[in-house]
């Protein structure tokens, strides 16, 4: 039985191993409030209110609750991902690999210049426990922060109504070499084809193996595999060439985060189209727009942040270099932020 893209590995939700700072449920909304260091998080019927200390007292920033939960879901599922996960122009996280920084206003040019930004660093497991506790409490029944809006509806809004632990306890399935190989991650043959990919052919490659070489040759229908993805904007590894990882994903609506790179990454548009807004990583000032159609290839330099928009669910190949020393090499200028010179 194939598993949903990032299901499973975990069973029922466990109590956090760390002492997460949280309030009793609010008598009006039913939601708890949370603290992570000096950051305070409060949820009402429509918004998440994030506050932090400044020289002028605590500053509060409002994010639509669905946008906040979609972004937080990616932070949790990706283990804080590569580099910066901007929930919006104001708030987000930066992966220090083992430690994680949460920031508010730090990468918003005006707020930072005004001295109203705040950054605090945490051990990643502790921050992760807090993020998961927020997701558990704030995702209402029926709301899947991984799904496209058309699929999951507006159940995120309003007061607390149940929970959706199954949706938020997914974790990425690790691929060692290629899905479907013996001992490697599973294919998705038993999952339904997404409504947007009903026309994608489902045939598999024909593999003729000579006696004695069983298990040595392998192929699969990547487009079929992607057509059965049950999540959006969530890369999964489908081939490993040392540190070079093909991480295709299916994209619909808006990338719920603005991803700030700590290395160069590449996009190959496999089907349909996505438009990317590219801004400066430090200031947020716009630098480029990239409309990518099937077959288009573009790099995303190491000094930018980007957010994608896709009306029709599309297939995107995200290509990553997983070398662990890259953030330092780019940050210290030992590597230029763009991939090639010509």
């Amino acid at each position, binding site marked *: 039985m194939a598993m949903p893209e990032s299901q499973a590995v975990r069973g029922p939700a466990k109590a956090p191993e760390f002492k997460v700072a949280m309030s009793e449920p609010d008598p009006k909304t039913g939601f708890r409030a949370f603290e992570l260091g000096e950051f305070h998080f409060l949820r009402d019927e429509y918004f998440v209110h994030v506050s932090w200390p400044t020289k002028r007292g605590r500053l509060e920033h409002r994010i639509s609750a669905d946008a906040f939960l979609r972004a937080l879901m990616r932070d949790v599922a990706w283990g804080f991902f590569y580099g910066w996960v901007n929930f919006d122009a104001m708030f987000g996280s930066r992966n220090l690999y083992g430690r994680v920084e949460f920031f508010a206003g730090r990468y918003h040019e005006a707020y930072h210049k005004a001295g109203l930004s705040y950054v605090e660093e945490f051990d990643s497991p502790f921050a992760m426990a807090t993020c998961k506790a927020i997701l558990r409490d704030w995702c209402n029944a029926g709301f899947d922060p991984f799904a496209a809006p058309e699929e999951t509806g507006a159940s995120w809004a309003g007061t607390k109504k149940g929970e959706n632990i199954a949706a938020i306890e997914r974790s990425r399935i690790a691929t060692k070499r290629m899905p479907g190989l013996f001992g490697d991650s599973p294919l998705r043959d038993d999952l339904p084809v997404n409504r947007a990919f009903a026309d994608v052919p489902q045939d598999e490659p024909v593999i003729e193996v000579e006696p004695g070489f069983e298990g040595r*040759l392998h*192929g699969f229908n990547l487009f079929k595999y992607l057509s059965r993805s049950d999540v959006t904007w969530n890369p999964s590894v489908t*081939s490993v060439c040392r540190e070079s990882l093909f991480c295709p994903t299916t994209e619909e609506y808006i990338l719920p985060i603005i991803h700030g790179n700590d290395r160069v990454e590449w996009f190959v548009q496999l089907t*349909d189209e996505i438009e990317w807004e590219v801004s400066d990583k430090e200031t947020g000032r716009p630098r480029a727009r990239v409309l990518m159609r099937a077959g288009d290839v573009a*790099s995303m330099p190491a000094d930018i942040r980007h957010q994608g928009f896709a009306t*029709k669910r599309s297939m995107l190949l995200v290509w990553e270099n997983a070398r662990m020393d890259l953030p330092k090499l780019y940050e210290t200028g030992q590597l230029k932020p*763009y991939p090639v010179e010509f």
Partner: protein
Amino acid sequence: MGRYTTVTGSLDRFERGQLTIIDDDPKHYCYSNVFEVASKSKPYDKIAVARNLEYVIEAIRAEGTSDWLACNHDEFVVVMDGEVTVSFAEPGDAAPPQGKDGTQRLSGPPKGRKMGRIHLKRGHQALLPKGAAYQFSAPRPSVMIQQTILGDLTQQKWAEICTS
């Protein structure tokens, strides 16, 4: 048929998007299109369309039969248009020298046992396993992308293929 149509590209029909620069150097985005690159390539030329330090993605026009090739590490291909058959064999004495990265051309036909074949269509992905010799064949012009490491056969033509 549902209400959605999935749009793919092909050698005969592809439509590039657009790179709009606001405040940057267009060269930093290395913006190209694999179908356009393959439409201007010779069969089995390996044109880098993406590079991340030593790692590359190559766009390949598959047409007719390729030389026998091999590699000291795993490689992968994804067919983007058309149909491609990959034949595999043990390289035997024709094996390329160890310690070199990237695709290498065999000095002659493989001397070892035949391992099998994989028939690929659009969207199919195949493993080109470390140490195996392989040969592509395509009955009509087709397009693949290959995940590998920069090697002697990789061609870098960034100024020709990228928007600048």
